């Protein structure tokens, strides 16, 4: 039996490839509707070529070969020689899905950088803003500033504007000239030019100003302060502009969600941009036999690459030959993903924006000063030890948001770079989603 965890672009592409071959497959996902973080089932509102998601939705919804388990929070998984057991919660009840082959398409979430006021109400990530909009349609009437880096800021800005928000501006920290470093990626992905034109048109339509080399470095709750930044993200000129607004959506690329693959023992490596990802072969196989991984968890690359990887993983699981054209398609999208890393780096200068009072861990309200003191006075040398001293990363998000920032702040203060083994250590956790002690304990007798 084949199972897929995740119903985003990669998972849906894999399911579609398997179902089209006449083989049954189970797709399990945390959301109520398919689409993942990026599509979220809604195809209207925003985005270039967003309607292409419709064909994937129809493949999993109402296809007799596809069993779709929705609203399922996978909290752990175990494997033996012959099978993999996925333990999940659905409406508070624990269930187990057993499979022989597994495709993990667990996606990614926004990367946040701390800045003064990022803990105030109204501060969110672009992904959260998009979720609010697509899930509930509640953005209308707000005035919002978008800051950070990366092409994802564009569809979010357009989506918010189309949803009735006043987008006061998009402040992209990096220069568009960085694209000149990746001529081959641009040459092999000409359709991306059309996508850019589409967004430029939308920006004109909604009168959204776009500025480069700038970042929001403070949010007061009712306004943002913008600074000019250098290419290493240090501040060139502080507080050059102040804009009244009720919201700030700041995002600095993405963090792959690698928890489940980590629990199942799939080999991880550190990507060039410092994110922890899975190593896979040309057919998307992980280091563990019978587990394939596709999409953002193998390296941030966007939905186009995720679709190609998911398609390849689906074909590989059922033993089908992978067409050369599909492999080439993945190749050129990988080149584009590399170009994205080169064009939208999150360089280390952001740590210079922080002062001692800036919160690094929002859940446990740990400041930058407390982290630095744990290094200076208590001799913490890594994120784990600092966490034990300060509680940074021990709250509800379990360090998903802050542990990387904690490690990098410590690294900078000791003038060393964060090691790969530390990056892998802070990225993994044995409990993938919270589970009540009652449900957990009851599991013994039911088995």
């Amino acid at each position, binding site marked *: 039996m084949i199972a897929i965890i995740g119903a985003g672009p990669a998972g849906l592409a894999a399911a579609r490839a398997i179902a089209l071959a006449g083989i049954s497959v189970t797709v399990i996902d945390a959301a109520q509707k398919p689409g993942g973080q990026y599509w979220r089932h809604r195809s209207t509102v925003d985005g270039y070529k967003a309607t292409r998601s419709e064909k994937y939705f129809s493949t999993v919804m109402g296809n007799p070969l596809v069993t779709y388990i929705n609203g399922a929070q996978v909290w752990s998984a175990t494997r033996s020689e012959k099978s993999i057991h996925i333990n999940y919660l659905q409406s508070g009840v624990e269930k187990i899905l057993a499979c022989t082959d597994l495709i993990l398409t667990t996606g990614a979430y926004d990367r946040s950088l701390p800045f003064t006021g990022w803990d105030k109400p109204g501060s969110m990530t672009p992904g959260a803003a998009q979720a609010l909009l697509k899930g509930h349609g509640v953005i209308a009437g707000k005035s919002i500033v978008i800051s950070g880096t990366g092409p994802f800021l564009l569809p979010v800005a357009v989506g918010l504007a189309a949803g009735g928000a006043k987008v006061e501006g998009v402040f992209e920290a990096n220069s568009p000239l960085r694209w000149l470093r990746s001529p081959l990626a641009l040459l092999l992905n000409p359709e991306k030019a059309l996508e850019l034109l589409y967004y430029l048109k939308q920006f004109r339509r909604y009168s959204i100003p776009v500025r480069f080399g700038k970042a929001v470095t403070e949010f007061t709750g009712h306004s943002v302060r913008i600074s000019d930044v250098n290419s290493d993200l240090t501040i060139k000129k502080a507080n050059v502009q102040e804009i009244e607004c009720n919201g700030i959506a700041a995002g600095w690329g993405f963090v792959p969600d690698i928890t489940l693959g980590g629990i199942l023992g799939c080999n991880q490596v550190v990507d060039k941009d410092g994110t922890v990802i899975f190593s896979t072969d040309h057919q998307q196989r992980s280091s563990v036999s019978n587990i394939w991984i596709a999409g953002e968890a193998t390296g941030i690359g966007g939905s186009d690459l995720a679709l190609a990887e998911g398609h390849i993983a689906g074909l590989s699981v059922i033993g089908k030959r992978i067409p050369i054209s599909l492999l080439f398609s993945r190749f050129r999208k990988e080149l584009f993903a590399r170009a994205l890393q080169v064009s939208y780096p999150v360089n280390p200068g952001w740590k210079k924006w922080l002062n001692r009072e800036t919160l690094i861990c929002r859940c446990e309200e740990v400041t930058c000063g407390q982290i630095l003191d744990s290094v200076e006075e208590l*001799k913490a040398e890594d994120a784990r*030890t600092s966490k034990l001293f300060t509680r940074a990363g021990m709250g509800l998000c379990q360090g998903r948001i802050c542990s990387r920032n904690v490690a990098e702040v410590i690294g900078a203060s000791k003038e060393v770079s964060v090691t790969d083994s530390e990056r892998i250590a802070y990225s993994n956790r044995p409990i993938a989603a919270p589970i009540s*002690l009652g449900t957990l304990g009851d599991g013994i007798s039911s088995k």
Partner: protein
Amino acid sequence: MQKNNPDAIVIGAGIVGACSALSLTNAGLKVMIIDRGSVASGTTGAGEGNILVSDKDPGPELTLALKSRDLWFELQEDVGDSFELEAKGGVVVARHDSSALMKLAEHQRAAGVTAERVNSAELHKLEPYLHPDLSEGVFYPQDAQCQPMLAAARIIQTVLARGGQLVSQARVTGFEISENSIKGVVTSRGTFHAPLVVNASGTWAGEIAALAGSQLPIAPRKGFILVTEPAPQYIFHKVYDSDYVANVASSDADLQTSTVVEGTRSGTILIGASRERIGFDGSMNYEIVRKLAAQATSLFPVLRDVQLLRVYRGFRPYAPDHLPVIGEDSLISGLWHSAGHEGAGIGLAPGSAALITDAILGRVSFMDAQAFSPQRFAGAL
């Protein structure tokens, strides 16, 4: 590395090493602490911070525990109130037949432990959320707790302020020994010379002894601790099952679980403790996690709706007879051991440090440390 030679080198920046270093420093020695990682990166960083007298049978370990518990409060005076030391008290609940627990309490009372037998009404007054069917137990007001990582860090900070040194990320690779006397420690960050070395390396103590050409039968015993989301205060003491006492003393290699439940200042609830002898295998075992959850909710049904957020694992260093090893090596003079405290290292650390400092300086100590001597294993391997 250009550093002045210390009088003594302590291997291990966990709680046992930290306390040993402070005790030697306060006795006037210049101390260097060496660790393969950083402060509290081993067992100390994976524990609850138990300072217990309730789980020990009368005998040398209990004598050490009682003294050590008092020394913790002296240590707090010396170092400052900075590691959440709290005499919160322990409640041991008799799950089935209470006779074994009551007998233990009686023996403990004879040995100087305050152990108050409590009836159902008193038990539920101490712990209002306890399962109503549980009707008997023993209250141990001396049981205490600290935040062990902060304790180790604050103690080491004090050592450094008094002229000590800390060398982190230095893995011990050998020793300089001449005529069976220790001369120095060879590490991945250089060789350091001192006529005295204290091996306080916890689960690695056996390997360290072997590097010196000696032997110490210390092995890891794995345990899991569950951590919940912050919850209202449901639990007021350290509450555990009377089975816990039996498991602590057991030599069975198989898994044992018996619940220890307690709240923390941050509102999270900690649930331990499993014990397994399977070497340094760090893999996750969800059946153990389920078992601990089931035991905790059977003590406190209110916990059924509390969410588990994370699980952490650690390895306790243990010796075959479950007693710590405190004393000079049987073969190498100048090499001292203070290790193998199993799950009681936080509680026993200040007492062990006092014993080892007294022995090194030839002073009369508060108890006879013969039972802890490394000599007891000489020729036994």
